[in-house]
């Protein structure tokens, strides 16, 4: 399912007068499909934005075990972005299907080139 579909989903569920959230540039996209996060492990740097897209036929969440981030419920075609501001290993899971697990490693900000 492509990005256009994801944006369409937001337009449809946001109501006639809701602003369409702009998709900000992200370093990576995690797709949720068949009750799995893909990729299940991802490495980014402090300050990086990651996009999560629900390509599944079921609702899911992107919820960190340390509660530092939570997408809340993402329906089919739902999309959510998060900027990682601290280094560390963030384990996250789906609140609706807690056996769905994945992790993101956040390294110090990449030095300017």
């Amino acid at each position, binding site marked *: 399912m492509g990005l256009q579909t994801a944006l369409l989903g937001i337009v449809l569920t946001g109501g006639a007068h809701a602003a369409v959230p702009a998709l900000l540039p992200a370093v990576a996209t995690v797709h949720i499909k*068949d*009750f799995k996060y893909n990729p299940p492990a991802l490495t980014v740097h402090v300050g990086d934005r990651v996009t999560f897209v629900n390509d*599944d*036929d*079921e*609702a899911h*969440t992107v*919820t960190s*075990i340390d*509660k530092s981030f*939570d997408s*809340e*419920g993402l*329906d*089919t075609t739902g999309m959510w972005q998060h900027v990682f501001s601290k280094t560390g290993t963030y384990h996250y*899971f789906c*609140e*609706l*299907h*807690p*056996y769905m697990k994945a992790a993101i490693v956040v390294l110090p900000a990449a030095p300017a080139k």
Partner: protein
Amino acid sequence: MKRDDFLKHVAWTGGGIAWSLTGGGLFNAQRALAAGGPISFVQISDSHIGFARPENLDVIGTLEKTIAGINAMPVQPTFVVHTGDVTHLAKPAQFDTAKQILGTLKAPLIVLPGEHDVIGTPAAFFEAFRRSDAPKGWFSWDQGGAHFLSLVNVFNFEIDGKLGAEQIDFVEKDLAAQKSSTPIVVFAHVPLYALFPPWGWTTEDGSRVLAALRRFDAVTVLNGHIHQIVQHTDGNIRFATAASTAYPQPAPGTAAKPGPLKVPDSKLLSVLGYRSVEIARSAATITDHSLQT
């Protein structure tokens, strides 16, 4: 009918005045007078208000159809229990819609949460369905000679299907005060036994509650969550999961994942429905009604 009105109604029939009912209703009334019971109630589950996918594009319509079926029952149930996943994403607007529809039931309503009703926080669920006698969500009561427990196994942050020590302690103390001859009925969203753990269809600490239920003559455990009817008997405990009012899910292990199951449109109503239960002495009679007419 409000609960107080119903109790007055019961007192009236208990006085021996004949019910002006037809068919099974009259039979039930006569048996009630003979046995000091029975009590009948209805279970509905998994309405997923807010769900909008091809598996069911009108979950409002199928819930309304469910309510119409219950309201048309010749003998109104003592209460209707909704065993969770009232909403799809726990949004306040979804709760508002659900409350409006469920508010058209003639019988009193009891609602317990499913994991879809407490995404992130149980606040919206409690806002919609809080009971003064259940500050934590779980509670018990006596009615019609039976003892009822309404439990919550979706509050754990990282595990669906967990009751937690505080609730188990409540259950153990509550059951300790009951006679073993009293029929026990337990409600919870996620199945209390290991129905299919690979899909999360189990309650991690459910065995402690089941252990406390062993000494009773007859126990009925009614759950939702898996959008299909599965009956299972383990000694004195009879388990039954309910159909959804919204969409079916695959039988355990018959698909790669437990997502919504698409059936032909002409078949959808036949796999959705509600359940009536009659408790008389030690016997529970479970009857499942599909929405197909």
